[in-house]
């Protein structure tokens, strides 16, 4: 055996013989570790003037659940509605028929308005319109929206595609705006892309990360 080839003769390497301060870039398969169920697939970071935020890859049968985490989504237009839709053609078009529900809880800084209610203007009934994730996004410099959206089994060709969403934002009139949206994309085709945008104006700040949940 040539020196430098660690193979048949030398079968055990004890830990003191390994320089653990070095970098080891394995390209093989390491087993014996617990695999994290949450895998970051991609992150959209606004450049300050984005018409849309689209995820056109990575949404497939690899995971049964996809988790979108919205952080500090800031609108160009004060009071704009933040919304999303899905695609069955890898993002060539967005507008899958959906039926959704929406309710929200509002409390203002002046402590004058508190309300919990169903929002008929923010739901969809077998519509291909974009789905409201809130009713009103404050556009002041310190105002934005954050939240979590779960999309279940988008690659199914048997069932409709369910999602749930909870987005906390700042009401343009200065208050807390907690919005619960849920529903299904009423298609048995695989959903393979998702797009976010404001109903008017640009996305002028924030990040959206999508995770696969194993």
């Amino acid at each position: 055996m040539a020196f430098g080839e660690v193979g048949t003769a030398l079968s055990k390497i004890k830990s003191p013989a390994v320089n653990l301060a070095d970098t080891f870039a394995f390209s093989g398969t390491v087993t014996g570790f617990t695999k994290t169920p949450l895998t970051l697939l991609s992150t959209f970071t606004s450049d300050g003037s984005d018409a849309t935020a689209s995820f056109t890859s990575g949404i497939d049968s690899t995971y049964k659940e996809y988790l979108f985490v919205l952080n500090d989504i800031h609108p160009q237009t004060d009071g704009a509605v933040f919304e999303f839709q899905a695609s069955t053609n890898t993002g060539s078009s967005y507008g899958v028929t959906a039926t959704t529900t929406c309710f929200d809880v509002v409390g203002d800084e002046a402590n004058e308005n508190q309300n919990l209610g169903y929002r008929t203007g923010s739901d969809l009934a077998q519509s291909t319109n974009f789905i409201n994730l809130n009713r009103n996004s404050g556009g002041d410099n310190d105002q934005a929206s954050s939240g979590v959206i779960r999309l279940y089994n988008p690659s199914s060709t048997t069932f409709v595609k369910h999602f749930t969403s909870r987005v906390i934002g700042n009401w343009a009139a200065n208050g807390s705006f907690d919005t619960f949206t849920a529903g299904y994309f009423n298609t048995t085709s695989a959903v393979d892309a998702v797009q976010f945008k404001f109903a008017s104006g640009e996305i002028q700040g924030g990040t959206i990360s999508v995770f696969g949940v194993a």
Partner: protein
Amino acid sequence: MALSKFKPASFDLTDNYAFTGTTTGVTDTNQLVLIKTLTASSSNTLSFVNGASSVVLDATYKTYLFKFIDIHPATNNVDFVINYTTDGTNFNVTQTSSMFAAGHSEDNSATLLEYRAGADVAQGTNPQVAENLGNGNDECFSGELFLFNPSSTTFVKRWQGNTATYNQANYSLNHFSAGYANTTSAVTGVEFKMSSGNIDLGTIKLYGIL
């Protein structure tokens, strides 16, 4: 000179390395641990019992998370319910629960945001996590449920669920259920079933949260 240190170039980095020892010096960032996945196939119940079939449901984790993926009932217009056991066999722990829901019909004729009195229990069993499920070929529900500190012998065991449902009357329903298993004994198992008929298809995953 003695061979005292192996550099990276000494390793075949395309090989497979199966570690069975303990790796220290690395912060464990994996705070969500997949414990068990069950897949329904005309199943009467789907159960997770500590110590059975590699299930962990004890003091290892303070919080457990169940994920429901495309749960499809065999029978139309049935409810999906949850029950707990303290002995691993009898899923009969007394519970008190609540449920409210937002709903919207596909024909846009009706909406709702209301307490669902028929879905709760008061010192009973079989509280609903999702209701009025449809068994049409493309109908199902998905969602999640947190169970907090089931191994406590001091407190009752609280849980909260959120599901999105395509129901039997062609409504989108967003259910929010919550409650507690009213026992100070450790809960060691959880059972899911339909109020009538089998769980035809679907996947339930159990995670532990560190």
